[in-house]
């Protein structure tokens, strides 16, 4: 009797166990069914991995796993992500006010495809992990990356003097006078950096004698200062000072301090998370990926990932034509 009870328990367990893994037919897992046949997991997988979108997704998944393994989340990354989040929230607060900023922030996150603030924070942390991978590549291939950066993003060292206006279309007499004084001093040969230090209204650059540092075509000066400033920054030759430019919130005078390749290369040698070399090229990730030891054990996966990498590098080559 006891043996029979144990045997029955075994049988029940087997039945339960088979039920727990989802529906299977002939050993194949069924995702969905119709009266005309089943949709098998293997078929869904085979189809998806052979499409363009599936190939990109396969690459992205492998990249995610690589990043998580090689550059796991650290407490510093978590702290940095929290700081980034706070800074974004503060900017929302100043724009929308204490009472309604959170609602607006969450609504914008949802529009961008994030279900929650914590999901967004995870994405920020991931972006820091991602940056670490690119940073490692840039550090270990600095000469090659810099050469490409210099050709592709035309970097230069720029300084600026800003004269703020309360209304750019209608400057006050005091604002006009200050601008005239700055123009006069520059004309008289006073050092640009000294004038910037004494007269510029730009709080970010004033103490650094007006230096914006290295700017390149991906710096988006248009967003920060206006299109006239962006255009002028890339048309100046080394040592040249611009005319007075009208920006979004004041007058600007720019000086191109250097376009010298070696000087700029030296300036950017210390690769930090803010380095423009990490962000100037969206497709650098494919070059970085190829430096890792990826051993493929499945032909379909190999084909999919390699195709995605090839496409990424092809797009990169197209951009450089």
């Amino acid at each position, binding site marked *: 009797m006891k043996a029979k009870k144990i045997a029955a328990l075994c049988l029940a367990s087997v039945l339960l166990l088979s039920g727990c893994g989802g529906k299977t037919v002939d050993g194949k*897992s069924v*995702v969905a069914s119709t009266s005309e046949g089943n949709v098998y997991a293997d078929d869904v997988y085979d189809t998806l991995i052979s499409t363009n979108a599936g190939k990109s997704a396969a690459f992205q998944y492998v990249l995610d796993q690589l990043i998580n393994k090689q550059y796991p989340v650290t407490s510093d990354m978590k702290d940095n992500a929290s700081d980034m989040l706070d800074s974004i929230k503060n900017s929302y607060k100043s724009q929308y006010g204490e009472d309604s900023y959170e609602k607006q922030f969450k609504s914008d996150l949802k529009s961008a495809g994030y279900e929650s603030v914590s999901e967004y924070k995870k994405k920020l942390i991931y972006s820091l992990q991602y940056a670490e991978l690119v940073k490692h590549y840039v550090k270990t291939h600095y000469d090659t990356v810099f050469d490409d950066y210099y050709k592709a993003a035309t970097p230069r060292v720029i300084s600026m003097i800003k004269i703020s206006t309360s209304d750019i279309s209608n400057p006050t007499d005091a604002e006009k006078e200050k601008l005239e004084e700055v123009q006069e001093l520059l004309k008289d040969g006073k050092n640009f950096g000294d004038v910037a230090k004494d007269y510029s209204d730009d709080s970010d650059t004033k103490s650094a004698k007006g230096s914006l540092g290295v700017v390149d075509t991906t710096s988006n000066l248009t967003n920060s200062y206006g299109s006239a400033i962006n255009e002028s920054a890339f048309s100046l030759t080394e040592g040249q000072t611009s005319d007075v430019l009208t920006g979004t919130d004041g007058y600007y005078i720019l000086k191109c301090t250097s376009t010298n390749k070696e000087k700029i290369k030296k300036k950017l040698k210390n690769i930090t998370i803010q380095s423009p070399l990490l962000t100037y090229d969206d497709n650098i990730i494919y070059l970085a990926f190829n430096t890792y030891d990826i051993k493929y054990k499945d032909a379909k996966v190999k084909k999919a990932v390699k195709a995605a990498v090839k496409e990424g590098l092809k797009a990169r080559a197209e951009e450089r034509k």
Partner: protein
Amino acid sequence: MAEYKQIHKVEVEKKPFKLTKKMIALLVIAIVLVVGVITAYIVTADKDGYTSSVQNSSSEVISGDVSVTKKGLYEYLLDNYGANEVLNEAYNKITAKEITDKDAINTKVKELKQRYAEYSGSFETYAKNQGYSDAKTFEKEVVVPEAKSDLLEEKYLDTKFNDVCKNYNVSYLKIVEYSKESEALKALKTVTSADAMTALMNANTSSATDLGFVCSKSSTTTVDKKIIKALSKFTSLKTDGVYKEAVKLSTGKYAVVYVYNTDKTAQKDDIVKNLLNLGDVKTDIESYYLKKYKFTVEDEKVKKQIKKISDKYVD
């Protein structure tokens, strides 16, 4: 010493319980299986987990500086494209059953290939842009199923034409807008024929619109929502003519509405063409056939994703 127990006044010998090797082995198997069941339950009862799996799912497909399993990759692909792919594969089975006219399929395939060739210069280039190096494979895997799907939609609208017209309140409308209700009512009285409506529109060109085909699924960006809301009133007209009341629009203006092409059968091709351009109508047709062919999603997570696309696809 033997013990005795009295049952129904019959004295039986109560044997001491002794585990045999066979019983111990069975007990061990049972314990292992029960633990397995509990583990499997914990894993699969996870609301965020997939219950479907690929064969050799735990096998490593990539090793070296990174380890990737087939299961991980399968689930990532499902996260991103699973719902659409499962719907496509199920629908392909249905269209294969419903659409069997080879000539019609070939004609539709030719039509689609021509359209794609126009997009990208040649059909081969289009196929390549979609990730297929072989245009024939693209035709077989994508274009033929799409052709069948299109034909199935046409078949549905053809066979259920009268019901569809009724359900979607299909109408053809011309309107003239007025700022004041009194002006609209005055104008309305002058519309005694199609020619009178044409004359009214010509006299008010800046506020007159021939809306043409309108139905309950028409976009409110092109047709005022109050017009769409009142469609059942317009479809009650059996012959072409002006609607008896001025319709107050969401803009606050008043519209004189003229209903034409009330003989829907004569406009069948145009109505079908217009309905096929509406995403909601396509969804309704697909959900009709999915129900007809007992579409059931076994994987709960995939089911939730499909519901997000449209809750009409699954119960």
